[in-house]
């Protein structure tokens, strides 16, 4: 098999990847489980990780890329230090989360799925974080802010800017 291995790009010598893959049998149906752990660890699915998985599961890079891009949880780009996710689930939408999203776009000057140039903020739209009783909600690195308003978002962004000195 060695000589058939793809020669472009480097495999990671990453300890995390090695330990992760050892936990799974080299079967194709483990792919999504592995990718979930990779996404959680790195905050995205880096190419070197895809390469390691490709070797381990004996799947082509194209097939893995196809799966990564199909599922919205997997991303190919790193997120910002502060990932602001605004819930656009129905309960939040009905309570005006669209306005909060508009404001976030305007303040950060990026679109959902993007990261600011300085790497501080990234913006994401999520569908239901499950806190419908607190709608509308947004989260910053997973921490939930309930009964959100444009003012509350402004306040959170201002605090981060002050803290990071940007």
């Amino acid at each position: 098999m060695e000589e058939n291995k793809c020669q472009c790009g480097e495999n990671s010598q990453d300890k995390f990847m090695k330990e992760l893959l050892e936990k799974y049998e080299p079967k194709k149906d483990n792919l999504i489980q592995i990718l979930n752990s990779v996404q959680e660890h790195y905050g995205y699915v880096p190419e070197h990780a895809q390469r390691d998985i490709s070797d381990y599961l004996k799947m082509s890079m194209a097939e893995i890329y196809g799966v990564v891009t199909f599922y919205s949880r997997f991303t190919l780009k790193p997120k910002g230090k502060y990932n602001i996710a605004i819930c656009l689930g129905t309960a939040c939408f009905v309570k005006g989360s669209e306005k909060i999203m508009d404001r976030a776009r305007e303040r950060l000057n990026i679109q959902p799925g993007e990261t600011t140039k300085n790497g501080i903020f990234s913006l994401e739209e999520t569908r239901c974080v499950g806190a419908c009783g607190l709608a509308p909600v947004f989260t910053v690195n997973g921490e939930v802010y309930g009964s959100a308003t444009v003012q509350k978002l402004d306040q959170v962004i201002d605090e981060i800017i002050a803290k990071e000195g940007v």
Partner: protein
Amino acid sequence: MRTIYVCQGTGCTSSKSPLIMENFKRILQEKNIQDVEVKRTGCFGLCSKGPVVIIGPENTFYAKVKPEDCEEIIQKHIIENGRVERLFCKNADGSIAERLEDLKFYKKQQRIALKNCGSIDPENIDDYLAVDGYKALEKVLKEMTQDEVIEEITKSGLRGRGGAGFPTGKKWAFAKAAEGKQKYVVCNADEGDPGAFMDRSILEGDPHCVIEAMMIAGYAIGADEGYIYVRAEYPIAVKRFQIAIDQARERGIIGKNIFGTDFNFDLHVRLGAGAFVCGEETALLESIEGRRGQPRIKPPFPANAGLWQCPTLINNVETYANITKIILNGADWYSSIGTEGSKGTKVFALGGNVNNIGLVEVPMGTTLREIVYDIGEGVPNGRKFKAAQTGGPSGGCIPEQYLDTPIDYESLKSIGSMMGSGGLIVMDDTKCMVNLAKFYLGFTVDESCGKCNPCRIGTKRMYEILERLTSGEGTLEDIDKLEKLTKTVSKSSVCGLGQTASNPVISTLKYFKDEYIEHAVDKNCRTKECKALAKIQIDPEKCKGCGLCQKKCPVGAIEGEGPGTKRHIDEDKCIKCGTCIKTCPFKAIG
């Protein structure tokens, strides 16, 4: 002995309920109080009043508890045997509810699927065993044949709670009849409808009842292996379900020769990764196998060729949550609840513009009016009810004139909606129905897997038309085109996602066509939700120049100085957030 129940569902957890539990434990220890137990529970249902703490056996219901309230609760309630009245919940009519049963929210509910949610610790198998846990499995394995189990489920009249309402007993019979050495049982916990959280709450609050039901199903159809496919976005549910599997395995409930019989069963968790289409059963199977979640062409149905082409039974979480109760109490008991065609209860996630937001379980046949007005206690802020949306992106909007429709699979279908998985979103008269249709279509465009053209292209074209309408560029011809497209997409899409994607458009067109026409012809959005069509203005007649709006405006778009000077809005700066409208004490802005 007293018990302090602390809700650890996702809603309450996100408002610091784990810290509340810690505080209770710490304070009890500090004060050396022995005979009080602090118990972690699943969702109590009334999420908008969370974090919720209940003290038993008296059932005192404390709402919106903060971590710093624990000291007072222990001092006043536990030690002095009094009550912390400021944490009592109020009904919408102002009456005070001291105990859970005083809350109007719970009055018309009947809990079958959610029976144990909120009363047992989901991370402790002994709690489940104490409430007849795994008794149904034992009964089935020791006293019933496979056919008797299927017969009992068929007789109960239970239908699939995932949305389509296929008779569960029939599904089991098909899977049993299918030939194959290896068969699988699958639980669909890919609850993708945004705003629906019934399945999550069951997994978080009572995971063992799903495990037990899957094993009963396994015995009935002849499967010894099961998979649960659950959204990775539900970390608490995933964790508790895994704990439940591990505990059941330790006790020998999952494993070989279960209850001394020759029945074996093993169970695995598979995580979804954020794809709505994976709620469709064949797409879900593809995803479990590690591929892109694209639906398969049916037939063959999963009962004949499912997971790795083996006969597979797939049921939804809530469907499974009914099974143990049917086995223990009998099919006759179950079929005495509900309507002619729809038996038992249904869990709804009630949300949106309604006073009580949370999980509601009612007998089939309950009317929408009862859910919205008696259980939900109506629309807040003095607004008017406009529509209720059931079934999420696959369902339809139900206007006021149908509020008295009894809820069951057929009646919801006949008024252009569907049961769906159980999302129930109430909307008041500030909501624009064209914009709502656009919202749902935006969702389907994002989530269409792209396999078949009608869904991939059709939903996108419908979305574009709705975007034109909401931005003031639409025409009457656009509305005609939209109507035609809904038919094409519904009829020719491969899977349920595409076939039902048009429903939000069809139902809003049917019941709120005048709003569509207003958008197209008058270039007006009566709710001012469609920004391009809405102008926020200050009525100079009513403005007293108090300047409150100016202080609250986040973008400094309101001009005018000093008290008594009439204000006006700079349209270029205004982001139409509506804060000023809410702020103005004289209702001068609109």
